[in-house]
């Protein structure tokens, strides 16, 4: 089996391939000990070729794998996105800790990439914090926001300041739905600014856990005035790319 594991800041994702077909994929919330968790996830899969990516790509989790590599999530997302969309030219990946815009060359290689600065603004973590502060489950956050109006704005993009801004909006009597909608639009505006810097053209693929958020997709499409393609399991795009990369590696046999 060829396995890709994406050890991210918030979740760990695994994709396993058998003869080039996806036979297993899994997403689990990260614990305080990601290495032990990753080892546990990999045990039953017994990968022959293993490629690690994500923040924890240098952790030793390989077990008995014959070939082991670590690649960055930038490269992994490039490969994973091209699997679903062979013509993909730009990828917007929004994960738990960072967001990135990757532009691809004709061959599918990384031509350039931009990442957010070292803060939570414009990341999944930011949305998570805002959901908590509005007393909403993350999975329901998009639906809540979709029912909100279009008038309210959040000005601060620092996660800490935005939280106090949300508190004052709550106290001013605005509805949770309106505030949730404003939070989404603020994140989308931030991501669009990043996209304008590093855009490599269409088609544009939206990956990472935040791509599961349908209202974020809606806001981005509205801002960009174009379509964003979301793969079937956007949060496992990096793990899929890693698994596909594993399948290309020589086992030396």
């Amino acid at each position, binding site marked *: 089996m060829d396995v890709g594991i994406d050890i991210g800041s918030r979740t760990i994702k695994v994709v396993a391939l058998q003869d080039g077909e996806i036979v297993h994929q899994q997403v689990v919330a990260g614990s305080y000990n990601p290495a032990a968790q990753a080892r546990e996830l990999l045990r039953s899969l017994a990968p022959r070729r293993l490629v690690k990516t994500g*923040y924890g790509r240098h952790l030793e989790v390989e077990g008995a794998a014959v070939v082991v590599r670590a690649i*960055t999530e930038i490269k992994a997302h490039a490969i994973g996105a091209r699997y679903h969309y062979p013509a993909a030219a730009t990828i917007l990946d929004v994960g738990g800790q*960072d967001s990135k815009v990757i532009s691809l060359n004709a061959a599918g290689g990384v031509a350039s990439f931009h990442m957010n600065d070292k803060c939570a603004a414009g990341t999944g973590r930011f949305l998570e914090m805002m959901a908590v502060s509005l007393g909403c489950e993350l999975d329901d956050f998009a639906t809540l926001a979709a029912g909100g109006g279009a008038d309210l704005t959040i000005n601060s993009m620092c996660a800490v300041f935005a939280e106090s801004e949300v508190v004052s909006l709550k106290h001013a009597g605005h509805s949770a739905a309106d505030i949730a909608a404003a939070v989404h639009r603020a994140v989308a505006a931030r991501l669009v600014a990043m996209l304008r810097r590093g855009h490599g053209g269409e088609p544009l693929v939206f990956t990472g856990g935040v791509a599961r958020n349908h209202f974020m997709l809606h806001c981005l499409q509205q801002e960009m005035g174009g379509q964003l393609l979301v793969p079937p399991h956007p949060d496992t795009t990096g793990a899929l790319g890693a698994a596909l990369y594993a399948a290309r590696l020589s086992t030396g046999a």
Partner: protein
Amino acid sequence: MTAEEFEIKADHQLWRDLGMDVERFEKMRLTLGEVYRNTFLSQKNRPAAMDYFDRLVADMHNGRIKEMLAAKAQGRPVIGTFCVYVPEEVVIALDGICVGLCAGSPASIADAEKVLPRNICPMVKSAYGFKAANICPYYQAVDLVYGETTCDAKKKTWELLDKLVPTHVMEIPQMKRQRDFAMWLAEVEDFTARLEEMAGRKVTAASLAAAIDTVNSKRLALQRLDRLRCHPLLPVSGRDVLLVEQCSFYDEPVRFAAQVNVLCDELEQRIAAGIGLAATNPVRIMVSGTPMALPNWKLHNIIESSGAVVVHEESCIGSRYYRDIIENNHTDLPAQLAALTRRYMRINCSCFTPNDERLEQVTAEYAQQQAQGVIDYTLQFCHTYNIEAARLAQTCAAQNIPFMALESDYSPEDIGQLRTRVEAFIEQIAD
């Protein structure tokens, strides 16, 4: 030197006599030793001549300080600096000592932030903090600190620093016109006069010619090292060369140049014998941008543990320091000082506008060192380099040079994020 043998030497009595916070400095000494072992002594098959520089670091809070104190006892001026716009030739012409002061560690930042704002450059904060907390023996041993006006954070910090240690501020112009040259020359003359007053003697044409020769020889040795390091075989790591460049700011210049040449001789032998880091087929990275003051080895560490080797630093601690030498064929002092000023004016710091020469310098050095990509390094809140990165990005894009700009400070908290960016950049070049 092996990791087991290496230790930053302590002299608690000396430090106490210098008025230092010995307890704190002792902890910093141990931390620094650990970082040094991990960064440098873990490398396999290093050139033997790096041993001199290991010993220099081991002795840097001890032996070199004693040399400075001995010079002071003889009435020779001992000057601390933070920049490459320092006419050190004038200091040496008066038989003085010029040393770069401590400004590269996160350990002194909290001390600085008791007074200085948080959102200014870490180098300025670190520099101020070392004096405020009395945790740098160099600061304690100097007669005078030489400050300059290359940025707002520095020039305003000097006002505060002057209360703690005498600080001479030289105005550096922001343009390179004839009238700026005249102003700069006058500043060099003022600095010379202040040093002469301290030393109780005059700079002569003969002593300045000898000093120019000394510093030229040091810069030429560093140029030779830069040419050899980028040989296709990569006979030495980028970390080791950065260390040598950092040492160029505080070792005795004649001894230092001789040791750099010993290292260069060995690198030539390694090249002849086919020894180098090239066997692992690393990507060749050039670093440009803001200085990395000792012990700031963060970026080189990340790059060189990610399948690449650094082949050049277009930086103050790098080619901005050694690229140009002073023409030394003048026999009268005014002509010598003019030649000296011309040389310093050729340095392409981002404090100048316009600064197109720097863009040309980066691309020329990129080609000369046969690099495969440029990583531009900006210390946080260094606005001039940070803004200039946009022009550098455009210049590199126009010439199909892979380019990435990074902004960072001295704290270790962003190492993970930097590593992702650096590894992705290296993948992009290697694929």
